[in-house]
């Protein structure tokens, strides 16, 4: 039976994705910084889907630990899904470098640290799939969330390079760019109803895109057009906008 490693398993999108993969017959290894919080969810997965679910503790910011953790993954994994993300506080980050660093390291540096190791492994055995959740926020810097956006832009670029490198090794890389999703991370934000997806919908779209070997997934799909338009606005005009 195939096994998928899900990193950042406490996030709402990760949980929804875990359910979809387990529902399609995958065994799972869930990695999160706090396993205690994850316990009820692991129990839920086991009851619902009758699959083997393992957990490992992984702190995305503790780079030194990553090699050891990846070496000790209990089984052969067929794919990895990275759903680590930290929106942070843009305003706070402008005056507090610690916040800036936390945003950058959680959304970019930490993920790169883990994926470097896994990508080498997949490259060696010439199989595997990598899925990582980036964001449409990485497509253009806006004053409301450019620290987060910049980290996501870096992640998107990293994934595109990785895809290019691993293409002829038979390893697929899927960059997921969700628009608004109703999750713990976005709770309390006033999101437009028609553009806001449920984690479950995103999860199903991820599964289907990954199975088809796609490169990039915008969700909803209309975000591809929206972001294209936003990218086309000349900087002279864009800098004056309050988006």
């Amino acid at each position, binding site marked *: 039976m195939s096994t998928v490693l899900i990193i950042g398993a406490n996030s709402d999108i990760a949980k929804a994705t875990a359910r979809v993969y387990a529902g399609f017959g995958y065994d799972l290894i869930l990695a999160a910084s706090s396993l205690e919080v994850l316990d*009820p969810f692991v129990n839920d997965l086991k*009851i*619902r889907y009758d699959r083997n679910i393992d957990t490992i503790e992984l702190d995305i910011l503790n780079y030194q630990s990553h090699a050891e953790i990846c070496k000790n993954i209990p089984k052969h994994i067929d794919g990895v899904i990275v759903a680590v993300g930290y929106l942070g506080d843009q305003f706070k980050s402008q005056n507090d470098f610690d916040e800036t660093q936390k945003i950058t390291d959680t959304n970019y540096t930490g993920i790169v640290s883990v994926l470097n190791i896994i990508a080498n492994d997949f490259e060696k055995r010439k199989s595997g799939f990598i899925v990582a959740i980036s964001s449409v926020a990485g497509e253009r810097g806006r004053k409301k969330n450019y620290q987060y956006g910049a980290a996501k832009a870096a992640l998107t670029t990293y994934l595109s390079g990785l895809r290019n490198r691993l293409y002829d090794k038979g390893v697929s890389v899927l960059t997921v760019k969700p628009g608004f999703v109703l999750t713990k991370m976005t709770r309390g934000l006033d999101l437009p109803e028609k553009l806001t997806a449920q984690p479950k919908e995103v999860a199903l779209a991820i599964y289907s895109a990954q199975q088809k070997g796609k490169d990039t997934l915008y969700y909803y799909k209309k975000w591809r057009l929206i972001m294209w338009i936003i990218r086309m606005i000349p900087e002279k005009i864009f800098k004056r906008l309050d988006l």
Partner: protein
Amino acid sequence: MRLKSWGNYPHVEGENYPVVSDDDLTDVLTQKTSLIVQGNNRSYGDSAFAQTVIDMKARDHFLDFDTKKGILELQAGALISDVLESIVPKGWILPVLPGTQLITIGGAIASDIHGKNHHNVGTFCQFVKSLRLMLSNGEIIKCSNTENVQAFRATCAGMGLTGIILDATIQLAPISSNRIKQTSHKTKNLKHTFEIFNENNDSSYSVAWIDCLAKDQELGKSVVMLGEHETEGELEYKYKSRHKMPFYLPSFVLNSWSIRLFNWLYYFKTKKKSQSVQLQSFFFPLDSIVDWNKMYGKSGFVQYQCVIPLEHSYEGIKALLNKISDSKQGSFLAVLKRMGCANDNLLSFPMEGYSLALDFKVNKKTLELLDTLDEIVKQYNGRLYLCKDARMSEDTLNHGYKNAEKFRKFRQDTESNKTFNSYQSTRLKL
């Protein structure tokens, strides 16, 4: 923000408050007043709306499943579709299934829902072995038929007005196939429809689609569908939605002519007397069209479901159908169902007799029509289903629900009336 129910009527103001942990719940109980819990927002009217709507969808964990005895324990926010996906492959099914699988377990309990087998097995809550309820002071109690019985009777069918249903333990029923043997009978008129129901009262499932625009000799013309579980076959189950209603249809599309055409097609399309169908297409035919409620246009629709006691069922249903047929305010979906005995839950809807459910596009004329239907229901000592209601009067409620006063007293004694209040409960002074 603007809150919209499944019927898109009425629109009210309120705040959506998603909860995950028990702490989230105690927080909201201390911070806010005028609360109501919401599941998957499939109630038609205003029963799941308040100034603050507690969104339970994230609390959907399965807690325990005894696959030998068929006992499932799970959180209230879990969807019936998820439950079926998990239990059907193991040879179990929920003993009571509503017309859609997109409702939560908590919602099923709060409305004490019934299914096409009510005449045989009763309501959903009759299979709830126990539940845990968070009271307005944050205290959590366990209730069942033997423990905190009063709270159990008030909470089952209590429309979320007694506290927050956290989780429940449910007795499942065994099955050995994911298919149903469906038999259809076309009937000529209401008398004939009642005869078919009577002849088949031992059939596991029964329901009739009724042409509510038919008149005179043909009044009550129906297709009665009966169902039995197949005894052999596969047990696979995946929730599928095939079509999506992409936008609201302009409200003029549904009129007495288009409904007449639909009814005519439906009646004549039903040819095969007996066929084997998937569980989903038997129980949840409308779920295959996502957002079918948009069919009624932006102004929305109301569903009207009443039950008339057996001794007056025939005259009562006939009087209702006559009134509807005369008004030409046709209902696209009209469903007639023989019900079994009532249970002891204070606000439970079913009682022995016949239930008629109808959808009406909202406009001034239909609202007036519904008021006249209320009078007929009262005259025959019937009552209306709370989870579909958006407009009945307090008087209509009191007339139909003899235990309403007991329910009010329970609310006062436990002080849940100070915290949990939906737009519906305020309207009905519950």
